[in-house]
């Protein structure tokens, strides 16, 4: 168990983390590459930057628009996302690991902040899961991965919370810690290949949307030639 844990938080973690970084860099690069290609082909290159900036801001810092509809769900979702980012990055134990392995560190969350934020993340993730199960519109849209992702994201939070705050035997601790680290590794590994890629792509959606309406100037001629419809009646 000890060896497995060492492996999971050592080489496996490094591998998964690098895969995540490279994977996210890849999809970002593909997004930008596609965007510049579209921009070069577009007949109209004037972009509505003010609108793009304003709408991007509305979602990256969700304080206004997000609460116009489905206020309860929005509240859960925002706090869940905050916890999801803040807790793993600013947890004292995680920072210690970084310091011991690569020698870098940064200020950590005070214990009680970490405690309540973790608990809140668990509660809100559970509520989101319940909502996905019971609210007709969300339930009908949900795919397997939408449930699995919530469960997978809950796993390191629950195990980490138990290990850090409850009195448990060494064996159980080791087992839960192994689950904690392995689930974290799996999350990192899967991120670039699944919907969680929105963590880097979503801020660019408004630019992509605006660009998507910038058509190339010779649609008619080119499509007709390819589909052999030249001169065909409407």
């Amino acid at each position, binding site marked *: 168990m000890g060896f497995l844990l060492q492996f999971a938080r050592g080489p496996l973690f490094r591998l998964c983390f690098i895969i995540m970084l490279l994977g996210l860099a890849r*999809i970002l690069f*593909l*997004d930008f590459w*596609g*965007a510049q*290609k*579209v921009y070069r082909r*577009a*007949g*109209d*290159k*004037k972009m*509505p930057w003010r609108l793009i900036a304003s*709408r*991007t801001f509305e*979602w990256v810092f*969700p304080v206004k*628009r*997000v609460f*116009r*509809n*489905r206020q309860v*769900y929005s509240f859960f*979702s925002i706090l869940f996302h905050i916890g999801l980012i803040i807790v793993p990055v600013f947890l004292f134990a995680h920072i210690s690991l970084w310091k011991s392995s690569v020698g870098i560190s940064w200020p950590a969350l005070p214990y009680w902040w970490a405690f309540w934020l973790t608990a809140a993340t668990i509660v809100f993730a559970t509520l989101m899961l319940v909502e996905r199960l019971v*609210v*007709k*519109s*969300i339930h*009908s*849209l*949900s*795919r397997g991965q*939408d449930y699995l992702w919530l469960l997978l994201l809950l796993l390191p939070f629950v195990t980490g919370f138990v290990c850090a705050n409850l009195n448990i035997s060494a064996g159980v601790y080791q087992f839960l810690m192994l689950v904690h680290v392995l689930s974290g590794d799996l999350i990192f590994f899967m991120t670039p290949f699944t*919907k969680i*890629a*929105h963590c880097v*792509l*979503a801020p660019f*959606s*408004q630019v*992509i*949307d605006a*660009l*998507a*309406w*910038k*058509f*190339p*100037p*010779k*649609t*008619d001629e*080119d*499509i*007709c030639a*390819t*589909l052999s*419809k030249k001169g065909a*009646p*409407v």
Partner: protein
Amino acid sequence: MRTTVVTDEERKKALASTKKPEVVERQKLNVRYHVEDCDVNDRPRRFLEVFAAILKHSNYKMVLDHFIRMTGRCSRCAVACHIYQATDDPKDIPCYRSGLLLDVYRRHFTMGGLLKGRISGGGYLTDEKIQEVAESFWNCTACRRCALECPLGLDHGLITHLGRYILSEIGIVPRALAVSVRAQLEGPFHNTSAVPVPALKDTLEFLEDDMFEEKSVEIKFPTDVEGSDYVFFAPVSDYLMEADSLMGIAAVFAATGDSWTIGTGYFDAINYGLFYNDRILERVIKNVDQETRRLKGKHVLIGECGHASRVAKNFMPTYCGGEDSVPVINILEYTYKVWKEGRLNLNPDVITEKIAYHDPCNFARNRWIVNQPREVLRSFCKNYVEMTPAGEDNICCGGGGGAVSMDELRPYRTTIGGKLKAEQIRKSGCEILVAPCANCKKQLRELVEDQGLDCRVVGFHDLVYKAIKFDDSLLVRKEEEVTAGQNNGLSDPRDSSEGKEK
């Protein structure tokens, strides 16, 4: 979560198909809108061929790749969709609808999808799937309100646009739109309503006489004047149904003295390409450009029409010369500009009814024309009320995306499509609803009728026409004639205090 209640009876009536079973059998397509007969063989292969061709020659691939990498399926868009709010059918949730096309793209045009398909041996596009796409993508009114609600920024309106584009290339397109476009691009009169030029000129002459009678001012509809500041394109249906809007526009030009003209070579602003096909969009907009250049006009001026204005504004640069294309302005922008400059005087005592303004989606969704008409209306309508939500968050009239042109969909449009809007109008208590868009006007009038609302739907310039005050120098009637006119029940044209109902 739903905000609209459509009764079972209404739903049943709205969703009933009026098509004969033999037509459904012949066309192998069970959709509510009418479709012309077309090749029904090997549809999935043809669908994919068209999809591939479009991806090759357009910019859609980039956005599809972006969307498939991160769709979250949170269903926030369901709250914003007036169709889902009315039907409560998960298949009407915008994210579900977009998913239909994104699934096809993922399965047939991405490495992962192809690989997965090979391994599982399934997931192929079928006739049934095309049937579902054909039904679903025309249930949507393409108002793009859902795009505002998506935390991940998915523009479902764009996906609807692309889906319809592919369908149209394999022959699945509402007959009403296809027939109109055919008349516009291949017919002898080059407009969607097949209005001949002599009939147009007669109408304009008649309206000029009418305006002279009512306002005692020589208000003209200049035609084919070269070198004008503005070449005017109205939705051609306005010449048949919206005389007051046209007279209001002409009156504004008479008051300002700016030069404008209507080209008789091409005068229809309608561009149904926006609703279903980029090739059509390109061809139609090029006609607008050619006519403007023929007349050496300095600006393209689009009348009261949401989709036509958006198409001209956004796609003239795309298809007609980029930065060198002729600048486009909508008539509301023009009227606002001259009002702001103090060149347009409106009598605040004429309109006493409770007025509300409806934002056409194509004006407001991207915050293009939102406050300008409101400022003008508030200046002369004493009893102006606001509907909520408004502006970029406005609720679609229910006839957007070409739906209003399909008469067979009227029960659908005025219950499922329009019930939320009807409730909003009723709540506002307005007596006159201003809708500066030909499609919205038609839809809202039918909605008012079918939902039993107690209000009138008019264009923005209908009210401007009633309230406009002309400079004394423009009045051509003698004082005695005015007095005589008043004795005969006609009002003093200088204060237009009782604009005649048309």
